[in-house]
């Protein structure tokens, strides 16, 4: 009996480990690992995301997000990233196969994140917008692969 809840159904094909090259908004290149796992029998999905230097292994970005479903069936993410602090993101409208979220960061900035599965790759884009005053930071794009099961085999 596999654990199925409305939340887990949204993340079923993402659960597990993903890795791939990533360029942060600072321009720094690294390797990004994302690990999706569930808790409380599928009522909570946690995402641990780390970007590290490909040569030294030093981590230069580490964060954890907790996903749950709201009353209206939309996703909400409680996020902590060491570099930015805490942020609550809410699901926004996008194409059917894209999971898009938007949230406010301290200092009037906003963070947008989108996840899309393309064949066996997970495409992550995220951007920090400076809000009213200041400059938007460059968008970061990462294309990740999973290695825990042969390509094409579903969850």
């Amino acid at each position: 009996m596999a654990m199925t809840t409305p939340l887990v159904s949204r993340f079923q094909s993402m659960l597990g480990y993903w890795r791939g090259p990533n360029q942060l908004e600072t321009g720094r290149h690294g390797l990004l690992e994302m690990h999706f796992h569930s808790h409380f029998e599928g009522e909570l999905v946690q995402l641990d995301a780390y970007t590290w230097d490909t040569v030294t292994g030093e981590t230069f970005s580490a964060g954890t997000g907790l996903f749950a479903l709201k009353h209206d069936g939309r996703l909400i993410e409680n996020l902590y990233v060491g570099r930015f602090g805490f942020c609550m993101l809410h699901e926004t409208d996008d194409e059917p196969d894209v999971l898009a979220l938007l949230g406010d960061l301290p200092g009037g900035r906003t963070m947008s994140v989108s996840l899309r599965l393309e064949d066996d790759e997970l495409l992550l884009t995220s951007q920090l917008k400076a809000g009213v005053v200041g400059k938007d930071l460059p968008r970061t794009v990462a294309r990740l692969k999973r290695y825990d099961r042969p390509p094409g085999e579903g969850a």
Partner: protein
Amino acid sequence: MSNPLSRFAGWIGDWAGQGEVADGTEILFRMQVSSSVEGNALCFHMESWVGQMQLLHGLRLILAPCPDGTLQCMGFSTRFGMVNLTPTPDDEDVLALAGPATGGMQISFSLIQQEENTLIATGMARPQDAPPGFAASGGTHGILRRVAPWRPPGS
């Protein structure tokens, strides 16, 4: 600047014990405190069990420093939804957190270290729109001991 989490690092490990909810129902507590977000945060994973090991409530919290060094806490409760809690200033060996939950309640949660291997856990929830003087009904209270596995005699 010393790590603001250091004063709670001694709590890393497994804790368990008994408690009760407001209506007198006895509950069993289990709590795992672990390093998280590559050492930048502490994760508190708490489970309250009743009867024949039915999970009454699950709470998963991430306590971490904001970029300005102040501690903040985000998490998920299986009863109250997403929570964002702020530590209220207190003694060195007390973690007192309070804040709103997306389910509409105002949550307060505290851990008080009574001795090296004993923590007192208290949790309270009241409607966010409750008028002043509203006596918060409900609440959970319990004693947690650091787990010391049974050892066969002579081992």
